[in-house]
């Protein structure tokens, strides 16, 4: 099976092409450049370097979130349109579970992204070899609550994040279990791992209905729901008029 995998959920952009477990080509960038301009050219280069054509791809694996809303939309729109156009299977994988694969040792892993105002997008996983078990689902959570979850689990934790310095003080003050961390290069997404995760996953996404896992409703919708608790609509707010 030929696999195209990519992640643009944060500053880094990572693309890989695999033939089953075998890596054919990969490219990762970590520059504040526009993913919209960069993603398709890098997909094209990576596929060409692999000696393939986009029509040879059997399965597309995308990091579906959480992360930057714009980055997620670029990746998921590209993934679902490519999958539709070349009739490939579409698989979505958590951007955080992907980062957890960077840990080379077994144990508790807490990948997270800074979501501002003391909040993070985070999940807590237990890693045994390449197998991940979810202990706390990916969510938008205050960093304090994340540390409380980790304290409750009561085992040493490995944080994976490029935003470690923003939270160092908080960790030193609140965490009661031993901790270590991967940051910098070691906290960048690796699309090869994403391809491997997608190879093992059996739940296919529907190319029409697939959307990013934002893990957060918009502020406007949150406020509206607070003001209209009984206003429940069945079905979509979007109407086809032609």
């Amino acid at each position, binding site marked *: 099976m030929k696999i195209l995998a990519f992640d643009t959920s944060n500053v880094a952009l990572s693309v890989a092409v695999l033939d089953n477990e075998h890596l054919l080509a990969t490219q990762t960038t970590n520059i504040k450049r526009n993913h919209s301009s960069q993603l*398709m*050219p890098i997909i094209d280069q990576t596929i060409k370097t692999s000696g393939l054509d986009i*029509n040879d791809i059997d399965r597309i694996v995308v990091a579906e979130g959480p992360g930057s*809303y714009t980055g997620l*939309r670029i990746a998921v*729109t590209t993934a679902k349109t490519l999958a539709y*156009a070349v009739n490939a299977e579409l698989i979505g994988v958590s951007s955080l579970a992907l980062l957890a694969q960077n840990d080379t040792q077994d144990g508790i892993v807490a990948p997270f992204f800074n979501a501002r105002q003391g909040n993070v997008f985070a999940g807590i996983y237990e890693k045994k070899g390449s197998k991940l078990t979810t202990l706390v689902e990916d969510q938008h959570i205050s960093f304090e609550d994340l540390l409380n979850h980790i304290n409750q689990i009561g085992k040493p934790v490995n944080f994976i994040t490029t935003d470690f310095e923003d939270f160092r003080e908080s960790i030193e003050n609140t965490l009661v279990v031993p901790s270590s961390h991967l940051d910098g290069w070691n906290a960048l997404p690796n699309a090869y791992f994403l391809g491997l995760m997608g190879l093992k996953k059996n739940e296919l996404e529907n190319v*029409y209905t697939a959307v990013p896992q934002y893990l957060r409703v*918009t502020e*406007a919708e949150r406020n509206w729901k607070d003001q209209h608790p009984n206003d429940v609509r069945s079905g979509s707010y979007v109407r086809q008029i032609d």
Partner: protein
Amino acid sequence: MGTSKLILAIESSCDETSVAVVKNGNEILSNFIATQIDSHQRFGGVVPEVASRHHIEQITLGIDQALKKAAVEPDDLDAVAVTYGPGLVGALLVGVSAAKSFAYAHNLPLIPVNHMAGHIYAARFVKPIVFPSLALLVSGGHTELVYMPAENVFKIIGETRDDAAGEAYDKIGRVLGMKYPAGKNIDELAHQGHDTFNFPRAMEHDDNFDFSFSGLKSAFINTVHHADQIGEELDRKDLAASFQQSVVDVIVSKTKRACEQLDIKQLILAGGVAANQGLRETLDSMIKKDLPELDFVKAPLKLCGDNGAMIGAAGYVAMQHGESADLTLNADPSLEFDWEPDAVR
């Protein structure tokens, strides 16, 4: 298929996800439109992040439906056209990402289209555009006069310095307690009332083709608030009629002057507010009376709002002129035509 050209056209700049298949730039084979109005009505206006999220729900379905309804296979297509600006950046990016992906997968040329050129080319579904031509573009985001000396050349000779006309309609609609978008409601109400308030006509006699609607909006709001304070009930029909008359008077008088000073053969009315009956009727009678030789083309009512078909029509012309984009194409939320304010002096 011979020499006929088929374009798949994608539009997602604001709150409509639309995908069309257009033949030779003047025949609509399909025009899928999914509107988000019901969603944004909750907030009294378009919320960009909500809009972007809705676009991604619809985009692939839209492509598939447009192709199926047109009974066209991807292999039959000659190009993919897409709106890359102006508009909401997150919304535009969904269309641009989808267009690039589809074009890449099917090895098709990618044609970047200015959304405003699209609005103008909605008129192409009525009749051919004759040059030199002038377009009056009125929408929720824009109010501008665009001079087209030749095919595929667009020069702005005047535009609003503050609110767009459609924006002013929505804002005063809110003051009158109307649902968003308020344009159609106000238009209907205006037809039942009279211009009794005589609101200001800003910049009507200035020596340029620019517009301003924020003073009118403020005058309207002050009038309503003042009446509220003294417990006076104002006639809503007359309020609507007075507001609309002020907007229409300024737009029509500036457009008339531009038509007279430029040696144009055709006037095109397009954009979301081009559906306004008051504006259509007043332009009709002005042209009949003062510019009887001028060919006046109104975008079809169904194509005044945002849609993919108009992007396909503009994309066809751009393609004929050799325009294309590569896979680095990005959204440009503040894209605009070149300015040529001195074109008529």
